[in-house]
């Protein structure tokens, strides 16, 4: 909202301490909760939060400044001479929807001359971003900006029946609003109507057919209170927002609307001439006025803590913002009618705290008296999972991967529609479905890296996938690593190397090893699987490694010391020629099975591809007994047992003698 300082200064007499705009701005920010989007010497653009509609006018800002500083408020002059006839003979108002309209005030002015507004008024309107149209209309906008209440002027001669009713529309009734659009109404829309048809969407916009024209001479000016939820629903339903609906849907001052009406009449007389009828129409609906609030100063002071104003001072602070206060230990507080946000005791507590100044409150630290008062994690198991993921992330980064964070939407084409949850109102580029797989988003990042000139990409992400389960969605946390292309660049010591399953496995084992987990891999449809994780080649250039975060957290093993061996190991290398198609794991499993209990470790350390498809695999076997140094015969027997089993189960043939 644009606020002009000279206009504010007309309404509140600023003390010297607040003469500088910066001082005023600091006061409003530090105690008023008003946010400044822009400010220069004469005009501010303010951001007013939805709970303070009373600040949406120059009077509102002036009133707040007065409350915060004790400055003297000089409200706009609302007096005028009523030279016209009795209002009762000129116009009528009835409220047929009393729960939607708490009060309707109307004034009649006859004999006006519609023409341009005086320059001072037009300038102020334009400075606040409102176009000047004609004196009568401009006055209603001027009073809106000045006092914060939306008013509407009808051409009284074009109202059938010389009056209006406030009622709900009938289904299918239509109105052509002043923006030229014809709208079909529902039974939930509140309208102002004359004897024949709706003439305004109450609180939102006037209709064509009764608006002020250059030929208008007699006016009915409306100043009313409409139920906020009703105006908001109508505004949303018809996609119609106005300065008027903006204020009504936040809540307006049902008492101050009368002063706004009188101010309007005064300014109409001043700018358009004419004679004002004696008296104003004032009809009440059936919306209860807010009840007094019970407020306990001692309790409030406790809640604020050290530095709070002493309980005895609270009543005065509340009076400073316009409350009526009675009582002593427990106060009965009637908030001023423009403060629609003051509804409960907590709202008054905020007033007391901010008027005093939040900076005056102490900074304390409530000690934790017992371990039972420490925070409890939620849900159970979340903390263990987060700790595991934290360690995995660090291990992966240490292994040379870059952590990414990606947008969890995948374009429709890449996702299985039935299993995925879709966004009903997507934003371009943030559209599609919530991801069911970690790979598409990581692959997009890899593509970006390659486009930027990298020869490969080693990435990981800790995130969630989303899976539709009937009417519900299951969110699964994961850690995924993607290796693409040439991930180890050449240096002077070695050539470049490309991502493959073995490289991914080394990284995976290092990362899981940091959690004490040694995965028992098994081959399953082209992938390597273990509990909680999987390594898979995704295409000719890419390998992925995926960890289920919940499962891995459950598998974490704490470090447990194992006593150091007392006796030496005996090491033998065997080189086996293995038929084509046999897996290294099969050969290793056979060696383990045949070697007996003395075998401590088996490690493949060389692979040689032969042209006919067979491979030569070299294994280092280590044997150890806990209670003695092994004799040579025991070791040879164990080796023989191992190689025999390998031959029997896989057809692997010993190539040369075992080397020790």
């Amino acid at each position, binding site marked *: 909202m644009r606020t002009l300082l000279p206009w504010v200064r007309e309404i509140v007499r600023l003390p010297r301490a607040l003469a500088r705009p910066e001082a005023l701005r600091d006061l409003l920010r530090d105690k*008023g909760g008003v946010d400044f989007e822009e400010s220069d010497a004469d005009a501010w653009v303010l951001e007013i939060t*939805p709970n*303070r509609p009373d600040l949406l006018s120059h009077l509102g800002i002036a009133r707040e400044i007065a409350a915060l500083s004790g400055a003297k408020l000089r409200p706009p002059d609302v007096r005028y001479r009523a030279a016209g006839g009795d209002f009762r003979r000129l116009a009528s108002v009835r409220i047929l929807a009393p729960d939607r309209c708490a009060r309707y005030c109307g004034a009649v002015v006859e004999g006006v001359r519609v023409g341009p507004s005086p320059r001072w008024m037009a300038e102020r309107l334009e400075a606040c971003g409102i176009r000047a149209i004609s004196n009568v209309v401009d006055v209603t906008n001027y009073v809106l900006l000045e006092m914060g209440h939306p008013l509407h002027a009808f051409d009284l001669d074009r109202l059938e029946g010389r009056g209006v009713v406030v009622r709900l529309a009938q289904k299918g009734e239509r109105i052509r609003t002043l923006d030229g659009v014809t709208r079909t109404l529902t039974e939930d829309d509140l309208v102002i109507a004359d004897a024949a048809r709706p003439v305004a969407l109450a609180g939102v916009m006037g209709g064509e057919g009764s608006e002020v024209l250059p030929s208008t001479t007699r006016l009915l000016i409306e100043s009313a209170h409409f139920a*906020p939820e009703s105006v*908001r629903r109508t505004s949303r339903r018809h996609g119609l927002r106005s300065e008027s609906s903006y204020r009504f849907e*936040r809540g307006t001052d049902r008492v101050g609307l009368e002063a706004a009406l009188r101010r309007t009449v005064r300014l109409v007389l001043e700018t358009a001439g004419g004679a004002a009828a004696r008296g104003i129409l004032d009809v009440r609906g059936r919306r209860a006025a807010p009840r007094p609030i019970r407020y306990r100063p001692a309790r409030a002071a406790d*809640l604020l*803590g050290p530095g*709070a104003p002493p309980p005895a001072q609270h009543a005065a602070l509340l009076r400073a913002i316009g409350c009526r206060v009675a009582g002593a230990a427990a106060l009965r507080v009637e908030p001023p009618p423009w403060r629609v946000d003051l509804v409960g005791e*907590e709202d008054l*507590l905020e007033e007391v705290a*901010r008027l005093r100044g*939040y900076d005056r*409150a*102490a*900074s304390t*630290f*409530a000690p934790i008296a017992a371990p039972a*008062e*420490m925070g409890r*994690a*939620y*849900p159970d198991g979340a*903390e263990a999972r987060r700790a595991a993921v934290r360690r995995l992330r660090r291990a992966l*980064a240490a*292994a040379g991967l*870059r*952590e*990414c*964070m990606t947008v*969890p939407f995948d374009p429709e084409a890449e996702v299985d529609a039935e299993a995925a*949850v*879709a*966004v*009903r*109102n997507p*934003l371009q580029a*943030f559209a599609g479905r919530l991801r069911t797989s970690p790979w598409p988003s990581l692959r997009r*990042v890899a593509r*970006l*890296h390659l486009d*930027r000139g*990298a020869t490969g990409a080693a990435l990981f992400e800790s995130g969630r996938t989303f899976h539709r389960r009937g*009417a519900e*969605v299951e*969110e699964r946390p994961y850690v995924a690593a993607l290796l693409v292309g040439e991930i*180890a660049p050449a240096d002077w010591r070695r050539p470049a*190397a490309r991502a493959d*399953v*073995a*490289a991914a*496995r*080394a*990284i995976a084992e290092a990362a899981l090893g940091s959690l004490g987990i040694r995965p028992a891999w098994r081959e399953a449809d082209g992938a*390597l699987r273990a509990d909680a994780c999987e*390594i898979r*080649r995704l*295409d*000719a250039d890419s390998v992925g490694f995926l960890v289920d975060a919940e499962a891995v957290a459950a598998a974490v093993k704490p470090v447990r010391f194992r006593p150091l061996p007392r006796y030496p190991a005996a090491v033998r290398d065997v080189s086996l020629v293995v038929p084509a198609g046999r897996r290294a794991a099969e050969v290793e499993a056979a060696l383990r099975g045949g070697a007996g209990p003395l075998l401590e470790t088996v490690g493949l350390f060389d692979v040689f591809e032969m042209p006919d*498809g067979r491979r030569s695999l070299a294994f280092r076997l280590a044997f150890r007994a806990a209670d003695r140094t092994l004799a040579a015969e025991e070791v040879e027997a164990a080796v023989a047992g191992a190689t025999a089993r390998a031959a029997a189960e896989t057809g692997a043939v010993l190539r040369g003698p075992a080397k020790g």
Partner: protein
Amino acid sequence: MNPVDEAARLRDEAMAAVGAAATSDALEEVRVRYLGRKGSIRSLLRSLGGLAPEARPAAGAAVNAAADEVERAFEEARARAAAAPAGPAEDVTLPGAALALPPGSLHPLAETSAAIEEVFAGLGFAVAEGPEVEDDLRNFEALHHPPDHPARDMHDTFYVDLPDGDGGARLLRTHTSPVQIRVMTAHEPPVRVIAPGRVYRVDEPDASHMPVFHQVEGLCVAPGVRFSDLKGALTHVCERLFGGGTRVRFRPSYFPFTEPSAGIDVSCPSCAGRGCRVCKGTGFLEMLGAGMVHPEVFRAVDRIRRAAGRKPAYDPERVSGWAFGVGVERVAMVRYGIDDIRLFLENDPRFLAQFPL
């Protein structure tokens, strides 16, 4: 040789090379040789400038047609290679064999969230988590956003295509505050948790807004919790996050689920509060929102507890609490001097590489 013939010759040569390429690298090398910036077909296109003007259209068309054919052939070969298994059936059971990768890195957003968590761990706070797909009850209504109320305009919401549950419409959470409701409906006081997580709002991306971003929520509820405790805890947190000399300013603000509400500003680290471009000359940066938990939130929590067969535990006459929220991107941008929020989720290698382990 005239350009049209040359184009045909190069095209034939290139197609043969594409066909002969046995590995992805070889294929890429062929592409660069012919279609790269210095490639022969591109060079030929550039050389057309030396022709007589009447000759250019026909020649240009011929060269472009050749380039298109080669490009298509290249794409097909790539797709074939991607679909085919790599070489002779790979033995995936070979043991892991480590490669020497250059150093990796952690994402600045994840690390900033971890730094915030660490400060709160030091104050005795545990971590709570909640789902990203939430419902209207826990995201709005129980947090004192009544239906038909302007407070809801403050968050533009993504809705998802799940049927309404007992919590109403299903949506992507617009803040981490729903976790407050989940924790309090599951646990009795005292509560001392932070809840980091991803949130979503319908917002056109620009340098300071993204539809997907991250927050850390905090909640502290027990008998006798005071506004001064909120000030103490958050002043300490700001000093730890931004440095010991940081000045912290509390001013009135508005959130539907707290009353009193406060906005918390920190002195601008770029200029130590003297005023600069980063803080638009004010010397301060808006950083956190906080306040005392609104009694309506406590009442909503107890209503949910009762409906689930649990006993009410959040009588506003007996307990009080404070809550806060902070944007992780905001903290990271200030700490690292990052000027465009879109960088976080773009994952450009030149961005990620700036944050070493």
